[in-house]
């Protein structure tokens, strides 16, 4: 290691590396920031074409539950009709 000198900064392209580095870091993070800003808008548009699916088969489970509920309702109506028709 040699003595302190301003010339070392010039020789090592210190200013160039630093300015380029800061610009690149900002470019990367601004790009991510812009992407995040527009992401909900893109997803809203996409929702019209490709609606968000429920995760881990929850959708299927909901359908099954709904089907069970429907069967229960039908059974209750049938029971009520049966009671009505039998005059009880």
């Amino acid at each position, binding site marked *: 290691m040699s003595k302190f000198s301003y010339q070392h900064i010039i020789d090592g392209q210190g200013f160039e590396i*630093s300015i380029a580095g800061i610009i690149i870091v900002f470019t*990367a993070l601004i790009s991510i920031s812009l992407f995040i800003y527009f992401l909900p808008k893109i*997803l809203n548009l996409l929702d019209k074409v490709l609606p968000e699916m429920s995760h881990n088969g929850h959708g299927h489970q909901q359908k099954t539950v709904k089907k069970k509920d429907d069967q229960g309702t039908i059974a209750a109506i049938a029971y009520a009709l049966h009671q009505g028709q039998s005059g009880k």
Partner: protein
Amino acid sequence: MDILNNFLSTTGFATMTAENVIMIAIGCIFISLAIIKNYEPLLLLPIGFGCIVGNIISLEGMPVSVYDEGSVLNYIYAGVEYGVFPPLIFLGIGAMTDFSTMLSNPKLILLGAAAQMGIFLTLIGALYLGFTPQQAASIGIIGGADGPTAIFLSSQLAPELLGAIAIAAYSYMALVPIIQPPIMKLLTTKKERLIRMKAPRQVSHREKIIFPIVAFLICAVIVPGSIVLIGMLFFGNLLKESGVTERLAETARHSLIDIVTILLGFTVGASTRAQDFLQEESLLIFGLGALAFSISTACGVLFAKFMNIFLKEKINPLLGAAGVSAVPDSARVVQHVGQKEDPHNFLLMHAMAPNVAGVIGSAVAAGVLWSHFIAK
């Protein structure tokens, strides 16, 4: 009697120097800070004990230390030397990071970029002091307050300074609660510290899944040198957010990161043999590291104030200090300093946004510097 005399000449008492004793004392201080003050105990304790181990000098020809080829410690240290451990730590960090607050307020990402200025300004300072450009870049990255990134870059560009840089980086990460508050208070007014942030919006599951993939592509295309660190960070995050690889995410954020932290901390500590470590260069690195860390903190705070000139909805400039990527310590410091002014002001959640952006920023900065010197 000869056998006894021979044996005594092989003991640590005979081979140890005053410098080794100093390093053992430093190791004890690290362990004390970890246990008594609870400063980054997961890192300081393994590093501290490693310091003690590394300064017991063995006989020549007896492969014991990290520098002796064929020793067990040397094999483990290969993970540091070849830059294997830092990406694995990034994988774990990704698997435990929730990017929600960042996704809900993307303008706070800029604070994570501003806080990387310390890296590049310190690089200039290190060049002035006579370090080579590769060494200066490795020293500058300490300003990113990201231990794994500092180790990764110095292992690639300046392996001869690895021990000093790793110790400096982790020491300053542990000293976040001491270094940052005075700078934050100095650069902000009471009125600014009292600013309250709007509650973050709800982030959808789909956003959380898409984010790591696209953010990786953006970083990798702009700075291919950041692929190793950023790739592992976002891969870990995708494991977490996908919801279908919970077992892998669980392993990455617990078992894997813990194992790697133990191996990395211990061997980095063991690499601080006084004969190599106690040099003028190491002192300069410590000085420059403190400078880098302080500049990064100041740049983050000042950039938040600069952003407030243009923003209708002002941001609390204290958040800028969280742009250095000491996760989650610097975010906690923001919360602590903010609550000193207003106990009902909760900034922690908001501070996590620049904090995780800082992790990305420092990895990108490391990629920029690595690419530059490899391409040269």
